[in-house]
Structures are given as C-alpha cells and as structure tokens.
C-alpha cells in the first residue's frame, strides 16, 4: 500500500511538467490515476468482506520513536478510500472539461492529486503520527485548491481561513495523539483497538478526547468552526464537489468514527458529539434555505449533513453507528452530484443565482434528471438511497432506549433538520431546471458529455443503491459499521420496514419540505435577513481575535525591534541589570575580601586619578581631538598599571597598539566634523543612570569574584613546565606561541583578514556624487 501512495504523490509533481498548451488532451484521460487506485482497492474488497481482522501492510520508518508507515485496510478505511478514489475519478474526468480553458490546469491537477494521495494516507494509515502527517498534507493541499483563483482576494482569504482553522485543529489533534501514545504506549490504531479500556479509564481521557474533537470539528466544519466551509466555496466547483462531499470534511468524520470503538464509552464523549452535531445540523439546515447562491445553499446543507453524522456517532447505539456509515455514503453521492450540476449550470449560464435561474431543464434534460434524482435522495424520497438513511435516522431518534422527553426532543430536531434539508436539496437540484426558460438563457449551448457524465453516473449510483440496497450493504457498509461498532452487527438495509412511526415521520418530512420549498423564493431579501447574525457569528469573533494578535505583534515588534542599535543595547543592558542584579542581591551574600587586599602607592593613585579624569573627558567633550587624546592617556595609564604589576609584555603591546590606534584615529577622522549635540539633558540623564548602574553592578560582581581566589593550577602547570617542556623562559610568550600556538596562528589570520578589509575599503573607488578626499 505504501508504494501506490508514494507513486500517487510522485505523479502529482509530474503533472507540473504537463504544460496545458501541449498536453491539454492528456488531462482527459488523467482520471485513470484515481480509477486504477479504485480498482486496486476493490481487489481487497472480498478479503475484507470475509475476514474480521484488518489487512495490515507493515513498513518500518522510525522504529525507535514508535513511528511506522504501516497501512491497514478494514471496512471503514475501505468505505472512505473507495469514495475518495471513486468520486475522485469522476471529479478528475469532470474537471478536465470544466477547466479546459484554464492555463494553470496542470497545477490544478497537481494539487488535486496531492490532496487525493494525502486523503488516502489519512484513511489508510495505521500509525497515528503518520496519519497526522497525511492529515496536515490534506490541509495544505486543500489550501492551494481553495485558493486556486489566486487573483481574487476572497478566494485567498477563505483559503487562509480554511488552512488556519484546520491546521489549528490538526495541531491540537497531534497533542491528543501524543497523549494517546504516552498513555497506551503505542501509536498503532490496530493495537489500540485491542485494548480500548486503557484509554477510557485513564486520567487523561478527557484531555485526549477534547483535543481530538478540536481536530475533527475544525476539519468537519462543526459549530462554531463551520464558517470556513461556505468560504471555501470560492474554489472552482470540482474542488467544492470533491472536498465537501467525499473527502476533506469527511476526514474529521473518519477520525471520530475510527476512534469510536477506542474512546467511546463515556457520557462526555456521547453528549459532546450529540450537542455539537445537533447544533450544527439544525443551524446548517435552517441557514441553507436563505441563500440564493446555489453553492452557498449546498455549503450550508453540507454543514448540516456533517452535523447529522456527528450527531449519530454521538448517540452511539448500534443502529446510530450503522445509520452514520450509511449516511456518509448517501451524502457523498447526492452532494457530489448537486455540486457538479451546479458547476454545469454556472458554466453554461454564468450565474448561480437561484432567483434568476429557471427552466434550464429544456436545454439540459439529462443534467436536470441527475439533479432531480440527487434532490430526491437528499429529501429521502422512497426508492432513492437517501430514503434508506432517513429511515435509519428516524429509527435512531425513536429508539425505545430514550425517555419520552429525549425521544421527542431528538425527533423534533431531526425532523426540522430534514425538512429544511429537503427544501434546500430541491432548491439546488430542481429549481434551476423547472419553470419557463427566460429569454437571456435561450442561447445557452448544451453541456458536453464530459461535463454531464460524472453527475449522471453518481445519480445512477444513488438510484441503484436505493433500489437494491443489499448490493452496497453486503459489500461495504456492513463491514464499515462493524469496524465502528467494534462487534458484529445484525443491522441490514432494506427497502420496506413496514408501516410504522418512522415511515410516518418520513412522509411528514417530505410533505413539509415540499411545502417549504414552494414558500421560499430565493432573493436578496432573504439573504439580508441573515445580516444581523453576522455580528454574533464565530467568524467575526475569531477575526477580531486575529486582528488583536496582529495589533499586539505589531506593537511589540515596534517597541523592541525599532531599528536603533543603541536601543537594542539599552534593552540588553537593562535586562542584564535587572536579572543579574536581582540574583546578586538576592542570593549572594555581599562582602569585601579585606584580607587579601594590597595597599597602593601614591604614584599608583595618581595614575588612577588621571585615568578617571580621562574617562570623564571622553564622555563629556564635544571635540573629537580631545576625546582621541583622552583615549591615548587612558591607554598609557593602563600601560603603567601593567608595568607596576609584573606584566612587561602587556605594557609593551598596549603601548604599541595604543599609539597606533591614536595615530589612525587622528589621520582618518581628523577631517570629520566635531560631535553634534544630538541629545537633550533628559536623555543624557536617563542614559547616565543606566550606564552608571551597569558600571556599579560590574564592579560589585568583580568584588564578589575577588572573594574566592582564582584557581591557579593551570598557571602553575604552565609556569613549571615552561622551560622544561617548551624551552622558553618568558612564560607569557611560551603560552602564546607554544601551549596555545594554534590560537595565535588563527589570531594572525584574523589580523590578516582585517588588514585586507581595511585595504579594500581604502582602495574602493569613490563613485560620482560622493565626497571624495
């Protein structure tokens, strides 16, 4: 399994070489890539159907960290992987026509293939860390897909929102995986499935599940992170169809379903999923009917559908989990169809505005039929696949395990959600095709077979699975549900459950939904009604937080990184004084070692006084020459100190170097103007206080260092062996040229480099306009 995934990644990059000017025809057959993967996966279907354990493909990666490239296929992985590659094939096929005039089509296919490979990685990985890597790859590749229209600001913005939210979630999810790894001692899903109780009974259990929820909810657009999904509608339609029906948003669902047998069992798990899913499905469904843009309608109904799945996973009974697995496939099929026909309508009529679109069925009857079937499935009308899942959902909410009140509450929410979803499905799938064809649309050409084939195949699937549910049930849904429930299931899909409460609810839903559809007239007015909600929307809140962080970062940077070298130095010095000063006064008993102090002679004192005066001159003079002279005085005074205390070599060097420095200063800087008075008294005072406290601190540290005598063992070794080993009697010289000879050699090189620098700067030819000397 590793090899096909890696090949898919490589193929993605190879696409970049296919310049559309030359290879445009090639893109028509590029759908063989997902199709071959689809067939490859199908070859494992029989063994999954029969076997109870998953098929594992082992590949070592970083065994010492417990990270491997293990892949596994079981029913649940298979369900998702088949959707990814199957619907992927149709999307690839469709996009080759939809984007044929796009000069960046090769890039599009690169992103799309990267995305598909990453999605397959997510659903097929057995190792949590590998899963996370693929998870982040889906976030990144979807960023490029959503922001594909790089020239539109809206498109870039929504891509950024999608990326920041999903990768924030991914980051938190990584923390959850890390905790799971620490607690359980393994990152392998297969091993975790064997010992689920380890995690449920652990003290970190709640942290683990909430971090996991953060990842799943952001990816699957659950309230309050739902808003990136409508924004992502800025992407080209094939992308929306792929990301929001079968892949990206289902990744979060996959994670929740995958961890259901491992982490469920606590009320918090169930109630959180039920509440979040419940809010999301209700809100998404109600909002969806207010929009007049076909894609927005679909976006909100997608949010609602994702909410339904999370809700069902939260209820967690066998029936509910089984219903969730069925609905995942049902939704993928009808939502992909609806998106694709939206794309066709948009392509032909150049608008997605439901208040204008009418009667297109006369021009594109085949597309209209596909849309009609998808809408019926979304409404759950009998004989479509959607009917079966709707029956299951009502079966869950009217289960006998609930108390009277809960049953009514859950059923009411589900009923209202379904009524609105029915209406919005009709809005997107039927409304553009019925009625009288307006004049401006009469010259629209028929869509080509490349465009309508994909949605027609999808809706055929909807119809076939609806009529013969056992086909799909036996092959894949049963085994997927088995993996989510964690044991065998006795559920099965059937067309007719008998005349019972569930059927009545279905009928009520359909009837009310159709009435609602006729009541709603898509218009600006309806959209305007949502304006008030914008103020309290989570997006507004998050935008404000993001702006606040940006403002803070800007201020912070402006303050610390202001471009003035001396201010940087000042900050460093102030922090030094603060931290070291605090430590010194807090932890070190301050005392002066009076015993070892030596007395000073009068001539030493005179030298001291001269140095202090020279230092004062340097800091206070306005004349360049005075300060240079003072610098010379200081150098010679230090020279004298070295002479007094047994360092003739130092005195010699200091004397030579200091003379040279002063000469250089005078020669080069003599022509420069005198110092300008830049600073006012206040700033001078501030700087004075800082520098004097710094000086005092250094002096105090020096005093404390003098308390404990220095370790003389190195000096003693050097002195004792200077003549014996190195044949030299001047120990300082021996150290420099023998013991530390290598250092001295490097030092010579440094001097050489400086000399080259000096020489080249001096020789550098002055350009016009410079003040040459």
């Amino acid at each position, binding site marked *: 399994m590793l090899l096909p995934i890696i090949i898919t990644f490589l193929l993605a990059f190879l696409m970049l070489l296919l310049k559309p000017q030359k290879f445009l025809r090639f893109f028509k057959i590029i759908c063989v890539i997902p199709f071959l993967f689809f067939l490859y996966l199908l070859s494992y279907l029989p063994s999954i159907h029969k076997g109870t354990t998953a098929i594992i493909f082992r590949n070592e990666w970083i065994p010492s960290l417990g990270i491997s490239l293990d892949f596994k296929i079981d029913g649940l992985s298979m369900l998702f992987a088949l959707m990814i590659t199957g619907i992927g094939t149709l999307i690839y096929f469709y996009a080759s026509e939809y984007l044929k005039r796009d000069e960046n089509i090769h890039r599009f296919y690169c992103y799309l293939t990267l995305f598909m490979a990453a999605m397959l990685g997510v659903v097929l990985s057995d190792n949590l860390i590998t899963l996370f890597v693929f998870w982040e790859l889906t976030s990144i590749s979807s960023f490029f897909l959503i922001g594909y229209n790089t020239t539109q600001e809206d498109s870039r913005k929504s891509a950024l929102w999608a990326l920041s939210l999903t990768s924030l979630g991914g980051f938190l999810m990584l923390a959850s995986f890390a905790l799971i790894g620490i607690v359980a001692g393994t990152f392998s899903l297969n091993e975790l499935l064997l010992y689920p109780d380890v995690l449920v009974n652990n003290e970190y259990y709640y942290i683990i599940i909430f971090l996991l929820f953060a990842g799943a909810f952001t990816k699957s657009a659950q309230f309050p992170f739902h808003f990136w999904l409508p924004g992502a509608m800025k992407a080209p339609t094939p992308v929306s169809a792929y990301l929001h029906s079968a892949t990206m948003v289902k990744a979060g669902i996959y994670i929740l379903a995958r961890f259901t047998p491992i982490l469920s069992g606590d009320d918090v798990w169930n109630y959180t999923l039920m509440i979040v899913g419940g809010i999301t499905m209700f809100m998404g469904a109600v909002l969806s009917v207010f929009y007049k843009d076909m894609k927005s309608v679909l976006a909100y109904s997608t949010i609602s559908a994702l909410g339904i799945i999370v809700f069902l996973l939260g209820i967690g009974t066998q029936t509910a989990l089984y219903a969730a697995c069925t609905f995942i496939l049902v939704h993928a099929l009808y939502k992909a169809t609806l998106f694709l026909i939206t794309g066709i309508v948009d392509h032909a009529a150049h608008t997605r505005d439901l208040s204008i679109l009418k009667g297109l069925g006369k021009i594109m009857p085949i597309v209209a039929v596909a849309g009609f079937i998808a809408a019926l499935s979304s409404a759950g009308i009998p004989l479509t696949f959607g009917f079966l899942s709707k029956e299951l959902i009502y079966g869950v909410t009217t289960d006998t395990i609930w108390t009277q009140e809960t049953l009514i509450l859950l059923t009411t929410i589900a009923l209202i959600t379904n009524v609105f979803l029915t209406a919005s499905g009709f809005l997107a799938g039927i409304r553009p095709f019925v009625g009288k064809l307006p004049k401006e649309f009469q010259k629209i050409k028929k869509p080509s077979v490349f465009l309508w084939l994909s949605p027609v195949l999808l809706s055929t699937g909807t119809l076939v699975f609806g009529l013969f549910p056992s086909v799909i049930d036996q092959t894949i849904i049963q085994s997927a549900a088995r993996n989510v429930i964690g044991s065998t299931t006795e559920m099965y899909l059937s067309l007719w459950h008998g005349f019972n409460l569930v059927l009545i609810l279905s009928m009520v839903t359909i009837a009310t939904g159709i009435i609602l559809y006729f009541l709603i007239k898509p218009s600006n007015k309806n959209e305007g009604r949502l304006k008030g909600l914008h103020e309290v929307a989570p997006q507004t809140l998050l935008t404000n937080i993001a702006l606040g962080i940006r403002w803070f970062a800007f201020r912070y940077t402006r303050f610390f990184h202001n471009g003035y070298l*001396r201010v940087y130095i000042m900050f460093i010095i102030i922090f030094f004084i603060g931290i070291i000063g605090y430590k010194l006064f807090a932890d070190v008993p301050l005392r002066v070692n009076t015993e070892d102090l030596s007395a000073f002679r009068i001539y030493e004192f005179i030298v001291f006084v001269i140095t202090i005066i020279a230092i004062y001159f*340097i800091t206070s003079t306005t004349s360049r020459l005075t*300060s240079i002279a003072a610098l010379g005085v200081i150098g010679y005074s230090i020279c004298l100190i070295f002479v007094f*205390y047994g360092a003739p070599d130092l005195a010699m060097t200091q004397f030579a*170097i200091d003379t040279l420095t002063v000469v*250089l200063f005078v020669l080069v*800087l003599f022509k420069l103007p005198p110092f300008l008075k830049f600073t006012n008294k206040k700033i001078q005072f501030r700087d004075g206080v800082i520098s004097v406290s710094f000086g005092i601190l250094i002096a105090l540290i020096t005093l404390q260092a003098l308390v404990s005598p220095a370790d003389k063992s190195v000096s003693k070794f050097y002195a004792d062996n200077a003549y*014996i080993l190195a044949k030299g009697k001047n120990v300082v010289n021996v150290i420099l040229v023998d013991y530390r000879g290598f250092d001295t050699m490097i030092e010579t090189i440094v001097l050489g480099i400086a000399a080259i620098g000096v020489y080249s*700067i001096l020789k550098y030819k002055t350009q016009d306009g410079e003040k040459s000397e």
Partner: protein
Amino acid sequence: MELLLVILVGAFYSAGVYMMFRRSMVKLLLGLLLLGNGANILIFLMGGLTKGKAPIIKPENSKFIEIYADPVPQALILTAIVISFALTAFAIVLLKRVYATTGSDDLDSLNIQDLDI
C-alpha cells in the same frame, strides 16, 4: 590597590555603555574601546595582583624559585589587545567610508532602508 582597580573597571564599563548609547558613530567606537579596556583590567585583576614580579624565569634557573605574576590572564589580555586593534582599525576605516558616502556621522540618519547610494 584592588579596590582602585575595581572602581576603574566600573568607570570603564559605565563610560563605555554610556558612549554606546550616543548617536554618533565615532562615540560608538570609543565606547567599544572603553569597554574593551575595562574588560582587560577585569581579567588582569582576576589573576591576582603581584607587585613587580614578571612571569619570566631567571636566566640561571630552569624553574621559578620565587613568587611570580599569573601568566594566563596576561596571555589572554595580550590576545584581546591585538584583536581589538584589528577591530578598531577596520571600524575606523569603515566610519570614514560611511562618512564619505553619506556625509553623516549620525547613526539615526543611516537608519533608512534603500538609501540611494
């Protein structure tokens, strides 16, 4: 004498930092030199002061027979003096160059990106 040198170290550090806070490039360089001098004295002081006895073995002996000044700090300081000269020489020439190009000694006036030079 140690106390005098401690005061001197403090004075060098204070003056050095104070000069580095100024806007003039030449003052920045002077400040750096003062700091260097302070550090040299500090290292010298750490080795312990030994009056008048250089770490040189008498010609007739092959080993020290009397007290001597610590050679290690001296070696360190010698290196530091030479390196600081390399720095100074380079900086002085650079300052001259900057002044010739921009006509300014003010660090703040150099603080503009894309200066047209």
